[in-house]
């Protein structure tokens, strides 16, 4: 079933919010890193993985989720966090390493945890897959119809945890959806050189679960496929594997010169920027410029507020580094 009008607008708003957020983070990240790029410097240190271009995957899937559904995400997680409803101010403050961050600056960009919406992410490829199966089993044991979604990149589909987690989910008939964001690259390694078959969704058969492939970064198709999978999981039908063709509009992390990327690839993808594509499609469906502008303004304000919140927040006291090692 195609998404309702208000769902589509909410999805668009999340996509825009994510994109604006990353534009803002990008600028902030580069502060103190110019002219000499040094990851350690500026208000946001460390690696920075942007998700621009991949918003449809997050938004189209999370549109079906409730707060009590769990999501485990990857190192490239901003879009997913936003789509899952992670508190944007606290998330931003976390990325700035501030006291008001989700974990008081302990985790940072690759370790965003928001227990209010059951979201977490990780810096280890495929690490979230087992926990998603566990979250799903917990829901099942509790008699709830909550589900879990594990997002990974196509590169992660060659990690052992992928295999073990899909098999375990299938054996347990756990209500979990595995979503592969296939952006064709694992850092500099192309999917076609790292992966023995063209579509990871075909690997679902190895676990007796349905596999769906969604081409072309198409948010409506993603929404559809995810809807089926979430519905199936809530109804006790067990796990599903979905692979989505998406695109990485930026480098693997900021500072990546992308010398390995064929000339023109990024320009081609930018021309098909899913934000532009979706805006056009929504316009064709009758959304007015006024509505777009109001959505975009709201998104802009949310992001600006979040950045301001983060910047104004204090740095944590050193002693807090010794706290919460144990609960």
């Amino acid at each position, binding site marked *: 079933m195609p998404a309702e009008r208000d769902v589509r607008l909410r999805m668009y708003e999340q996509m825009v919010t994510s994109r604006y957020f990353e534009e803002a983070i990008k600028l902030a990240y580069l502060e103190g890193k110019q002219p000499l790029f040094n990851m350690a410097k500026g208000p946001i240190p460390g690696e920075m993985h942007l998700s621009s271009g991949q918003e449809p995957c997050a938004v189209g899937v999370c549109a079906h989720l409730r707060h009590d559904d*769990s999501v*485990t995400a990857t190192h490239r997680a901003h879009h997913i966090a936003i789509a899952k409803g992670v508190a944007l101010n606290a998330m931003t403050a976390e990325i700035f390493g501030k006291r008001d*961050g*989700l*974990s*008081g600056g*302990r*985790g940072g960009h690759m*370790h965003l*945890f*928001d*227990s209010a919406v*059951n979201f*977490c992410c*990780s810096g*280890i490829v495929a*690490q979230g*897959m*087992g*926990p*998603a*199966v*566990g*979250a*799903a*089993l*917990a*829901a099942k*044991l*509790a008699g709830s119809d909550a589900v*879990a979604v594990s997002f990974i990149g196509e590169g992660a589909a060659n990690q*052992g*945890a992928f*295999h*073990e*987690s899909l*098999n*375990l989910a299938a*054996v*347990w008939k756990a209500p979990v959806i595995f979503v592969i964001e296939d952006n064709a690259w694992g850092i500099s390694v192309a999917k076609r050189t790292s992966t023995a078959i063209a579509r990871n969704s075909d690997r679902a058969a190895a676990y007796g679960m349905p596999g769906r492939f969604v081409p072309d970064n198409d948010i409506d198709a993603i929404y559809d496929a995810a809807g089926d999978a979430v519905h199936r999981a809530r109804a006790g039908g067990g796990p599903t594997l979905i692979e989505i063709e998406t695109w990485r509009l930026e480098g693997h992390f900021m500072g990546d010169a992308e010398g390995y990327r064929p000339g023109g690839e990024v320009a081609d993808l930018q021309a098909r920027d899913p934000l532009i594509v979706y805006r056009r499609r929504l316009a064709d469906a009758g959304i007015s410029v006024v509505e777009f502008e109001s959505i975009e303004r709201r998104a802009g304000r949310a992001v600006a507020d979040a950045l301001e919140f983060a910047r104004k927040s204090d740095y944590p006291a050193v002693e807090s580094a010794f*706290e*919460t*090692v*144990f*609960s």
Partner: protein
Amino acid sequence: MTATATATATAAPTRRLTIAKAMSEAIGLSMDADPKVIVLGEDIGALGGVFGTTQGLLERFGAARVRDTPISETAFIGAAVGLAAAGMRPIVELMFVDFFGVCMDAIYNLAAKQSYFSGGHVCCPMVLMTSVGGGYGDAGQHSQCLYATFAHLPGLKVVMPSNAYDAKGLMLSAIADANPVVFMFHKALQGMGWLGTVPGSIVHVPSEMYTVPIGRAATVRPGRDITLVGLGLTVHLALQAATTLAAQGIEAEVIDLRSIAPLDREAIAASVAKTRRLIVVDDDYRSFGVSAEVIAGACEGDVDWLSAPARITHPDVPIPYSPALEHPLLPSAAKIVEASTRLCHDKVE
């Protein structure tokens, strides 16, 4: 075992249990008390655990709460973290500690860091129980201890009982703990007939719930001349040595670490402040191990040593298969006696 002694003194008739039974009993009591406690692992269902840690649990609690898993340690330990984050209290078994290499990420980078990365908002009340130790010819991939491998990494608590009383109490503490606890059990103490068992590990265990605190060592024999620090099996070797030493006029104080992380530094410091002599007995690899940490920790303090501290360990070689090779490499009471006598030479001369 001071605690044990007390318990034994007051309770009659005694219930002498093996560590395996004590662990199973602790888990069963917890499962009775709290529906959120579940058990996952290989062969923990119908078999009751290769090392008898889950005996009778499948029958009592059913397959939904006692779940045999595929041979997929990364997935099921990862799943346990997800279960714990969702409010469950999973107990997972890693059959042999030697297998940590296929799943350490889920343990040290995931379970151990949930609390920190979430600023304490997500906790990980998970027990990872795993067998350690050799001496029975199971060779280099089934006989390791790896105490320090786990204890070095923040976010994990690591415990190991030397007897059934502590096993039950530590297990109940571990299950109640909001954090991941690696519960090591030594095969030579486990009480599985087919492995042989040091008799001292089979002691009175009260039938009710009680806890042995994590992070606290036990002084299992007091003495003024030398401190012998052991853990698990080596506690028994140290006690045996202490008996021999006593006959030679050397009074050894024996400390059972019980917790490896956090280490009870105060207990060690208090003992060496008195004895000013220290031997650590550890069946793990020698270098970069528990013995080094205990000695370094003690030496950082201002002890006026009567002789330099020493360690008795497995050497830095893989654990060999042949009994002709393995046995002489492991710590023994005789080695402890020999080293103690050497350190106390001023006393015996």
